[in-house]
């Protein structure tokens, strides 16, 4: 009989979310490979809650997961580098980053914790606001914002914004009830959570994208080691197919974001080079500094990432 691998993620299933598509694709590829493996996908947190997936995949309770790596930064502070303001910059550079010494270090820590990476994926994201467009740091001052992780929160506090920590599923209600005036998250989530219904302005990733998050497909090492050699090869090959598929889609996600927001009558803008530099300056004094102080090899990681062309 076939061995069934359990795959889990937090986004809507069967609705075209790119991360769901990647997991489904791995399932299809494995079936095609005919090595006695099939994948059962549990979308939309229907198995493990978003943040519980790290413990589950490293311990082998779930076999495969699409997981925003920064969610585990409380256990592995180095992972904060995968949601660090301005560290990536563009989809092109994200691809080059994947094979750099920086990502080798990150991946080594992932593997040490008990998971292996099947597919790399860097998602761009933007700001939304129900008050006024967030472009320069001054425009964020006085707004109450929800950031995706501690590194971004530190930068926003540095710009004079208030922070309201809440899970991304609460962004919609938060904005609707004016508890938040703005938020930042990935292009995919900005669309799938229908946040365009409650915002006035979107700052799209554009030329100067501040927000990039690493959301790879992970496999449990325990589960991987249980497979025979042929199966292991098939799994890695399927992961590569999903990664290539994502690379083709990455920029389309940002286009879809802009289109959806425009179609729904939301003002759409981007950051200028000056705005981007001003944010980066604050980030260097806050999140970068904290990261280098808190993480033992933090300085090395940042230097390695910045060294990539």
């Amino acid at each position, binding site marked *: 009989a076939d061995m069934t691998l*359990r795959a889990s993620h937090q986004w809507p299933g069967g609705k075209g979310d790119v991360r769901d598509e990647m997991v489904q694709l791995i399932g299809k590829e494995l079936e095609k490979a005919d090595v006695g493996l099939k994948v*059962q996908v*549990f979308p939309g947190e*229907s*198995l*493990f*809650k978003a*943040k*519980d997936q790290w*413990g*589950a995949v490293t*311990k*082998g*309770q779930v076999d495969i997961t699409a997981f925003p790596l920064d969610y585990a930064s409380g256990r592995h502070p180095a992972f904060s580098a995968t949601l660090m303001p301005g560290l990536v910059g563009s989809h092109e550079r994200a691809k080059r980053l994947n094979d750099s010494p920086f990502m080798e270090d990150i991946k080594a820590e992932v593997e040490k914790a008990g998971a292996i990476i099947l597919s790399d994926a860097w998602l761009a994201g933007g700001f939304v606001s129900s008050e006024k467009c967030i472009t320069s740091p001054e425009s964020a001052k006085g707004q109450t914002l929800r950031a995706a992780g501690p590194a971004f929160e530190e930068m926003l506090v540095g710009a004079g914004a208030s922070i309201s920590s*809440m*899970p991304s*599923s*609460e962004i919609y*209600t*938060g904005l*609707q*009830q*004016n*508890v938040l005036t703005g938020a930042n998250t990935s292009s995919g989530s900005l669309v799938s959570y*229908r946040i365009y*219904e409650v915002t006035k302005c979107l700052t799209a990733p554009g030329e100067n994208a501040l927000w990039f998050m690493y959301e790879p497909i992970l496999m449990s090492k325990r589960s991987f080691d249980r497979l025979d050699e042929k199966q292991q090869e098939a799994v890695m090959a399927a992961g590569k197919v999903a990664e290539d598929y994502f690379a083709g889609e990455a920029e389309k996600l940002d286009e879809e974001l802009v289109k959806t927001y425009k179609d729904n009558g939301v003002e759409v803008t981007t950051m200028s080079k000056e705005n981007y530099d001003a944010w980066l300056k604050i980030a260097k004094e806050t999140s970068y500094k904290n990261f280098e102080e808190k993480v033992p090899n933090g300085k090395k990681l940042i230097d390695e990432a910045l060294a990539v062309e």
Partner: protein
Amino acid sequence: MTPLLSGLVMLLVLLALLAIGTPIAFSLGLVAMGALYTVYGGFFLETVGEQFFGYLSPFTLVAVPMFILMGAAVASSPAGKDLYAALDRWLNRVPGGLVLSNLGACSIFAALSGSSPATCAAIGKMGIPEMRQRGYPAEIAAGSIAAGGTLGILIPPSVTMIVYGIATETSIGRLFLAGLLPGLMLTVFFMAWTIIACRRRGLGLSDLTQNFTMRERFAALPRVVPFLLIIAGVLYVLYGGHATPSEASGVGALFCLILVAVIYGIFSHSWKFSQMRVIFRDTLKESVMIMLIIGASELFAFALSSLFITQTVAQAIADMDVNRWVLMAVINLFLLVAGFFLPPVGVILMTAPILLPIITNAGFDPYWFAVILTINMEIGLITPPVGLNLYVINGIAPDITLAQILRGSLPYVLCMVLGIVALCAFPQIALFLPDYVMGAAK
């Protein structure tokens, strides 16, 4: 074992554990643990700690203990009695005034407390003896209070609605608004039936009233108005865009605690500051119970999903392709039966996550369904064998037999069924207000 068969085994073991009197939380938890063992093997326990903690720690859940605290603060004070007295003095000229004051006080107190048995106890303690003294039959006095008390979980704020919102990830603010008009509609149904029932017994309602001077009328207000202001404040803060339900409930709880201490501390000799201990005892008891059921039912849902039972059941029902109203009738019947035995929070947590996808697939609105579900739970509160409100009435009016209370409640059950029918015919009764205030749900 196929998913459906393992689901059946889980259900049977759960029913057996519940039948011998095992607490709901621990029954759910143990069945879940057993099922998880078969899926993951012994080391599944290594992630359960993280999961269980995660189930209890979302900020939205904070609204549960906070609204309970708000209700306990109001319930511990003589506010219910004062509210009743004030309405009675102002409505005594209206035909059937005492009935109106009773049911009106029930619905306002429901808005204050978010809890059905608390509403029942607070208004019934004063209302039942008063109604009987003025010549109302025992059945009507008891039945109307038992039914009026159930409004506590429909008229906002409602702990039941919060739990539904958490279980189904729907907007709690929108749920609250959806419950308001149906709650008022049921109040009107209850009043109408009470007046009809009195007429049939040849009771002229004007004979049963008593006169008050304007001075007496105004004297009743100062202790009541502040609480009405708090509830208005909480709802304003919620819908005016200043806070989330968790935040509004927290601030509301603080204000209620202060008010109870100030108003009844100063104006009343019967209320002592040591009541604070009682308020916190009750809140702790109630919220620990609900929180543990929430955690355990999430674990249960995780086990169901791990065995692919949830997905298989949902698919099976989708494939049946029955008429959506037949489906709705079956679901209602199922909820009604579940409500006979289990408390509202238990039913909602166990069924909502499974029912919701089925409901939305059939083209029903999740907020409208929340109201339908809640009215079903209200019926459960005044029907045997497990009907909290019946036993509360039995406790506060021991001379009325349980059979009399039951006979008195039955027509109100029919009023609620009528309410469900009205909501099925005109979903706008539930959906108009949330759409109007918060914009149409997309």
